[in-house]
Each structure stands twice: as structure tokens, then as C-alpha cells.
């Protein structure tokens, strides 16, 4: 009961004007503290949004990252490289925070070793891939389009096969990137029963 009364006192105190600190101290101090808090928050957020952070766990380094290394998104003639967050974390702030909250499930997986061996990873591969396919399907392959914008494509510079497919299927909105471009960065799971892979 005593504790409750003390807490009520603090709560009521918050509603009263300050007795010891000037208005300037409170406003400027609050402003500075806000900058420090926000800066710190974003710095940590950005630190978790790097390839180095992703592959600091062996689960990603030995599986997903190792598979990426041979693909065109990692090694190519022009030296442009897509890192993990470029494709797997939305760039828009609110979407990014939502994805980061979802990632707490991945921390759980790390702690309890859900995919801590190659065998476990292979067993989970279809589930993990389906998560990403569903996400990219739902946002119309937004992470692909951050770099590959259909409006900016020079169709004439593409091969006849690509130009035809892009105009016929992507341009009309009938399909989205991930519908055809599955497994471009990582090995595929068993594709039996997956649409378009019969």
C-alpha cells in the first residue's frame, strides 16, 4: 500500500510545474537528451543492418552468405554489390521497424539453435524461403525494385528473352519479380509443389 502511495505521488508530481529546474534547462536538456537517445537508437539500428552483423552468426555465414558469394548480386563486372539488408530489410523507416520487431523471432531461433547445423538449416530451408517469398509477393518485390525499377529499364538493352518476359509479365503487373526470380541469391529448397516449378 505504501508503495502504491509513493507511485501515485510520483505520478501526481509529473503533472505539477517543476520546482527546482528552470524551463530552459528542461526544454534544452530534453532536446539534447532526445538527440542523444535518437542518435544512439539509430546507430544501433544501423549497426544491426549491416552484412558484418548478419554474418557474425555462423548460421548466416556458413549457409545463406556462402551461397550468395557465387551469385551476380555479390560478384559482378561493375562492382555493385547487394548486402543482406538491401534485400531482406525494408528501406522505409516504419516497415524497417516492423521487420526489426519480427526479427526478435530470429533472435529466439539463434538462442535455441533452431538452425545451428547444416542439417537443421536444410530442414528449415523451405519454411524460411516461403517467408521471404510471401513477404516479397505482398510488397510487390519492393526490395528488388529499390534498385531494379521497371520504369528505368532499357528494354532494348536486354536480351530478347528478358525483354519479352519483362514487357509481357512485369510491365502488365501480371507477375512480380519474385514470381520468376526465386533462388537468385541463395540455393533453393525442394521445389516440389511450388508454383511455377512443376
Amino acid at each position: 500500500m505504501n508503495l502504491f502511495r509513493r507511485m501515485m505521488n510520483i505520478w501526481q508530481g509529473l503533472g505539477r510545474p517543476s520546482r527546482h529546474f528552470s524551463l530552459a534547462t528542461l526544454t534544452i536538456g530534453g532536446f539534447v537528451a532526445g538527440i542523444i537517445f535518437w542518435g544512439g537508437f539509430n546507430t544501433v539500428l544501423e549497426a544491426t543492418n549491416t552484412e558484418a552483423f548478419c554474418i557474425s552468426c555462423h548460421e548466416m555465414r556458413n549457409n545463406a552468405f556462402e551461397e550468395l558469394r557465387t551469385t551476380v548480386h555479390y560478384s559482378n563486372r561493375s562492382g555493385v554489390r547487394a548486402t543482406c539488408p538491401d534485400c531482406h530489410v525494408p528501406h522505409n523507416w516504419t516497415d524497417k521497424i516492423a521487420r526489426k520487431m519480427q526479427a526478435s523471432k530470429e533472435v529466439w531461433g539463434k538462442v535455441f539453435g533452431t538452425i545451428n547445423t547444416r542439417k537443421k538449416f536444410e530442414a528449415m530451408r523451405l519454411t524460411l524461403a516461403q517467408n521471404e517469398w510471401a513477404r516479397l509477393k505482398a510488397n510487390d518485390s519492393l526490395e528488388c525494385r529499390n534498385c531494379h525499377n521497371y520504369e528505368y529499364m532499357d528494354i532494348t538493352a536486354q536480351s530478347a528473352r528478358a525483354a519479352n518476359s519483362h514487357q509481357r509479365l512485369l510491365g502488365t503487373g501480371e507477375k512480380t519479380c519474385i514470381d520468376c526470380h526465386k533462388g537468385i541469391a541463395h540455393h533453393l529448397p525442394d521445389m516440389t509443389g511450388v508454383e511455377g516449378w512443376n
Partner: protein
Amino acid sequence: MCSQNYSRLRMISHGLAAGLFALAIMMTSSLSFAEDNIATLRTFDLTQQPTPPDMPKPSFTELREVRNYPEQPPVIPHKIRGYRIDLNSNKCMSCHSRKAVGLSQAPMVSVTHFMNRVGQVLSDVTAQRYFCHQCHVPQLSVSPLVENMFIDADDLSSGQ
């Protein structure tokens, strides 16, 4: 009895070793004699490490290529980088399978590929034909390393 047998075996093996050694000397001498006459693709000495030629660029016409004989597996006229064929997936079949050609407009895999080794027709491509690259390959613009004596059957019959 046992040791007698063993010593005989040793004698035989010694004799065999000596014989093989003599044979080896004879062969190397004959090899050095015939060195100039052996057809080889190696144009440098074994002890040298020459600079390999530049990697040739694949040539993709994106059009169907003429086959040199009716049974020739059609060559792949398009890029196939990263197209994996493994236990989990077959990227080629995501366009060339019976059901995929409607969307992809790619040529369907030949009906002969649906037949197993005893000629029984299956509903899907037989496991023997699963690995496309065993027969179907992209082309490189390079000059052949050895002369090709192949003559098209039509040219042969028309006497050209």
C-alpha cells in the same frame, strides 16, 4: 613349408620388379623418340607454366541454332549463369517443362525425354534426362583446338 613359399614369392616379386623397371626404361626411351609424332594439345614444355588464354565470352543469339544432324541436342542460346540443377530444383524446367511453356513461351522439352530406358512413356521427364547440361550446352566463339572432320549428311549425299 610356409616360409619356403614366402621366400619363393619374394624371388618372384623381385624378378617382377626388375622386369618392370627394364620395361619402364625401354618405354621412356621410346617415348622420347616418338615425342614429335604424338598428337597433343600441349604446345609448351611440361615444366613451364604458360599464361592461359583469356576466358572466351559465351555467344548468345537468343535464337534457335541449326542442328548439325537431326539427333543433335539443341544448344542453349541464352545465359544460364546461376541456373542450378540439383536434387531440390531444376531451373531449366521452370521454363521448358510441359506446364511452364504456356507462360514462358520456351520450347518444350522433347517427348523423347519422357521415355525411360525401356521405352516406357512417363508423365514427366525421366530421371535419366534430369541433368540438362549433360547434353545441352551454351556456345563459345572460339576456334576449334583440333580440326573437325564432320560432314553434314546432306552435303555428303549431294557430293559437296
